[in-house]
């Protein structure tokens, strides 16, 4: 019997689910291997019997916790899909300012109409069995993870820094071109796509295990970044992770 798979989203742009749809362009055979029973963005069918649940989005209000826990109770395997679910993503930037200021700035005097609390990744609410990092996820990595899950083995997510992949691509280091980059402390797996397109790594895949953040910060400072600029680099995607270390 084909494993039943479902997709769910919380606070996110749904770009990772769209990337899943895009990955099917070149891997239609994947649809032969699994049965998708729920994927609200793409289909009307809704099945509640599933073995694998992919979750996009971070958790930003209390009412979403019950829904996530229910999904956890049904799914044998729960996978965080993308940076919002994995590390909070850009949604966690809001945690840097007092919550009442943030709410008032957008909704004014009606702020209390719309519930919200500090952004958290889904692992802060339920047990997560596997994660696919990135903003958005990498198509090929998604395929590799699904492949591993189908064979019942641990998904091959790198735990070395992005710099390794950037060197393998033979890119000129952005620091040598007058730029800056978080590649030295960020988890690889994206093929160093941002430096390849001329932009420094923004850290969307989260920190590697045991990152040397102090050294990273002094390298950025030596490049001429102010402490505020260094903080901005570290918090674009890392606001939640940094608050926990």
């Amino acid at each position, binding site marked *: 019997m084909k494993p039943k798979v479902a997709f769910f989203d919380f606070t996110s742009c749904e770009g990772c689910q769209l990337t899943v749809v895009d990955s099917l362009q070149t891997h239609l055979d994947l649809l032969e291997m699994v049965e998708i029973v729920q994927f609200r*963005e793409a289909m009307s069918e809704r099945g509640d019997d599933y073995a694998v649940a992919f979750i996009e989005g971070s958790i930003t209000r209390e009412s979403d916790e019950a829904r996530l826990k229910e999904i956890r109770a049904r799914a044998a395997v729960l996978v965080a899909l993308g940076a919002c679910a994995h590390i909070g993503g850009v949604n966690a930037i809001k945690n840097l300012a007092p919550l009442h200021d943030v709410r008032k700035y957008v909704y004014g005097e009606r702020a209390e109409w719309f519930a*919200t609390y500090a952004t958290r990744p889904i692992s802060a609410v339920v047990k997560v069995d596997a994660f696919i990092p990135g903003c958005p996820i990498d198509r090929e990595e998604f395929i590799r993870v699904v492949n591993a899950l189908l064979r019942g083995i641990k998904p091959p997510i790198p735990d070395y820094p992005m710099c390794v992949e950037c060197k393998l691509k033979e890119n000129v280091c952005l620091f040598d071109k007058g730029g800056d980059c978080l590649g030295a402390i960020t988890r690889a797996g994206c093929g160093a796509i941002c430096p390849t*397109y001329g932009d420094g790594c923004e850290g969307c895949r989260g920190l590697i295990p045991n990152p040397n953040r102090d050294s990273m910060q002094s390298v950025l400072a030596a490049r001429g970044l102010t402490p505020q600029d260094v903080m901005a680099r570290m918090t674009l995607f890392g606001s939640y992770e940094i608050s926990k270390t």
Partner: protein
Amino acid sequence: MSQNMHIDIHHVTRVEGHGNIVVNAKNGVLEECRLDIVETPRFFEALLRGRPYTEASHITSRICGICAVGHATASLRATENALGVAVSEQTRLLRDLIFFGEMLDSHVLHTYMLIAPDFFGVGSVIPLAQVAANAVLRALRVKKLAGDLCAVVGGRHTHPIAMTVGGFTHLPSVDEIKALRERLILARKDMDDTITLFKTLPWPRFKRETEYIALSKPNEYAFIDGAITSTDGGSWNISEYKTITNEHLVQHSSSKHTKHKRESYMVGALARFNVNYDLLHPKAKDAARELGMKPVCTNPYFNSAAQIVEMVHSVEGAITICDELIARGITPEKPYTFSGKGGAGVGACEVPRGTLYHNYEIGDNGRIINANCIIPTGQNLANIEADMRALVPQILDQGQEKVTLALEMLVRAYDPCISCSVHFLNVRFI
């Protein structure tokens, strides 16, 4: 047939984000008819405050996975207008090219994967592949071309990398442009087949007059920059956008509503078609004729047909730009470096779902002081509800199942992007 009806569609499917449709009719009288937007608020304007201006386009592209290029472009135009940055002709051409790619990508996703299943009476594109395999393969082929086009220019479609203030951090090669051009030429056949397919489908018949608003330019079908223009007459500079949008909060929607002179207005492919029809590529005008539409078209279900017209326009427009880039070659250019002087500015684009405004105030330290983003779906919410209120009494006697489907199809026709507007769709009949 009972004249009492309670519809409560929780989390409408095949739309981007979370919304609910709520309808309540008693003795043939419509008592309640709402589109609840239940998406979690994301507070992007607040996120931007205090961030370096260079991050704005990267943060705001994360508003939407479908129209990330549109958000990045509107953001860059706002920043460039705030800082007084002029962009080169090459940058303008490359932005137009990636925009055509996004338009094609978004419209093919919507028409084939989100709308077409309703016409075939199936729940999604997966069973659709059983009954219309060639159509699904065509959609995947066009979508891949559109995504690859965006990747050549911006590094990737969902959250472009190389687009930056004043230009690009990476430029495509002429060979890459040539390869794209060849595939775009082949896509003409797919466009023809798309028209052949969709013109035979049973489009719902429903009309309601409303105001249509889109950006317009004198010599081109506007997607980036232009003047705000209304079918009710009038044209405004984009810096006056607030006099058009008049955002206000309603309790059942975490996305703000807007209104201009009437109770609501519509933005998106149909609005652009109605405002800028004369500037469509001749092949796109042919497509409109085949699909049986001409301006002013007041059937909101035809927003998806206008998207097909724009797909044809985008393929032809992209070919023209490729020709121009191949002829002039690609020149290395340096993007902008900060002058130390801040300012305020508005950027506006016609993204797939309608007019998008970004407005920033940037300090002399290069940090964003204030930000405002007005999203197409937010502008359409009041108009969708006005359509629902006009439509339901006309079809109330058809029974709950048909009314539910008609309302879901209506909401889908607008191609709402609820994460953008906050997040959105469920039909609830209570």
